[in-house]
């Protein structure tokens, strides 16, 4: 089966153009010595790859890459260089030989293998014809949900997602251990940083933050139907809080959501996720088998109109289960992102203080 269209194809053209742009940006990151430039380039890299992902029919991934790669990663990186320094030292060219050789060797192996891969877009390749296709066919029957990616993520491979949520939680624990403690009293008052004359951003932020939070909820609950889900929503929710911290100062935000509460929420999210699994188990199913989310006596009480579609009524367990675990993911991701920001942000102010003293 030929993989390529016979005529010129817009998708392929976009694909190639975007990849070339990615190559250029990656080269620029490698060359630049200014860390700020490298971070901005990396942000651009993420954004371009998000666009490329849309072209490649992966809107969910594109969404995540945009919020995580271009959003959160950039914030963390900027926070980090604020605390360290802005220039990288130029390495001696002789010390580039060994890395270059290693990279050429690994790259050679990759290219060697890539030549044996089926061509781009081959619908008959093992990757696309076997399990991938099976998901597309089985999802309407098993889950009854249009977004197959969400279905696979939260139901078929829900254990992966539990692990992934745990990774996020672990990152929160790690950052809190590294940066979360210390002389918190030295937090600078917001006026010293922002000043009262920054009225415009404050008013704008007051307007924006609820909207951003609302959008987060939209992304959260729309995940069944279109691109979106707990991760993206969680990051967006965190963005709202981070915006608050940026405009009103970390102390205000910490007063509203103390670091300890943020950490607790992160762990509660994972607990919620794992708890759903255990409930399914206690009702006689396997771990995370949402068909057993509620015992049969409860099942009969659920009115048919709740899901809006009688045809999908037998998927009630799946829907509720996915909703609940996505909620757990949202909690963990947003709380962890806030925790991470607190870590870096708290340090930022301290560092600024220390430098002012000297």
């Amino acid at each position: 089966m030929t993989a390529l269209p016979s005529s010129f194809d817009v998708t392929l053209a976009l694909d190639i153009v975007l990849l070339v742009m990615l190559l250029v940006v990656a080269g620029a990151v490698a060359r630049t010595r200014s860390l700020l430039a490298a971070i901005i380039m990396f942000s651009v890299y993420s954004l371009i790859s998000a666009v490329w992902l849309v072209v490649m029919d992966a809107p969910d991934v594109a969404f995540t890459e945009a919020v995580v790669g271009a959003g959160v990663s950039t914030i963390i990186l900027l926070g980090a260089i604020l605390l360290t320094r802005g220039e990288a030292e130029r390495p001696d060219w002789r010390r580039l030989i060994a890395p270059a050789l290693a990279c050429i060797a690994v790259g050679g192996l990759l290219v060697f293998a890539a030549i044996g891969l089926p061509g781009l877009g081959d619908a008959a390749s093992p990757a696309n014809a076997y399990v991938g296709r099976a998901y597309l066919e089985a999802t309407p029957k098993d889950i009854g949900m249009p977004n197959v990616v969400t279905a696979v993520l939260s139901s078929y491979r829900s254990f992966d997602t539990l692990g992934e949520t745990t990774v996020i939680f672990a990152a929160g624990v790690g950052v809190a251990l590294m940066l979360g403690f210390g002389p918190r009293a030295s937090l600078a008052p917001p006026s010293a940083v922002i000043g009262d004359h920054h009225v415009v951003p404050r008013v704008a932020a007051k307007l924006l933050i609820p909207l951003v939070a609302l959008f987060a909820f939209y992304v959260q609950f729309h995940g069944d139907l279109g691109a979106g889900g707990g991760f993206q929503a969680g990051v967006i929710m965190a963005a709202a809080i981070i915006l608050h911290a940026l405009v009103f100062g970390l102390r205000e935000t910490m007063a509203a959501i103390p670091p300890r509460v943020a950490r607790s929420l992160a762990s509660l999210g994972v607990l919620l996720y794992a708890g759903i699994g255990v409930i399914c188990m206690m009702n006689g199913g396997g771990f995370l088998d949402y068909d057993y989310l509620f015992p049969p006596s409860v099942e009969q009480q659920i009115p048919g109109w709740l899901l809006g579609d009688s045809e999908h009524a037998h998927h009630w367990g799946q829907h509720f289960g996915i909703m609940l675990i996505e909620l757990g993911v949202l909690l963990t991701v947003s709380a962890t992102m806030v925790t991470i920001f607190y870590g870096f942000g708290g340090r930022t102010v301290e560092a600024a203080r220390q430098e002012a003293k000297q």
Partner: protein
Amino acid sequence: MSFFLSHFNYIAVAILMMAGLFVLFSSGNLIKRMIGLAIFQTSTGLFYISLAKVFGGTAAIAVEPGSSEARELASRLDPAYVAQYGVDGVVYSNPLPHVLILTAIVVGVATLAVGLAIAVRVREAFGSVEADEIDVLSRVEATQPGPQA
């Protein structure tokens, strides 16, 4: 030429990965290493997504069978192709790698956060984020006795 086009993605992604790895290996600056690592991980995601693309496919969000949208999507393609590879008359891209890469991206940002947090602490402890300078200071440290509890 056709072979080159159909495998261009893989080769480009391989080069991107190596660019990330090169930044990681060649740079002595811890922050820049983390950037390299992030590029390396992101590019790995691009590789998976390339695998998942199906020619003529659409995102794996089910289109109502028989709807106008489904008809419009099918009309662009050879009916035999749709019949063979479509699900309910629509050809979708493979959702599984998307799911995997969603996970991988999240793992990537987690790694980035922890790595940068450690880098910040390194700066606070050693006053530098350049690996060479830290090495020198570490070697000095090796001759110092440990603190007594």
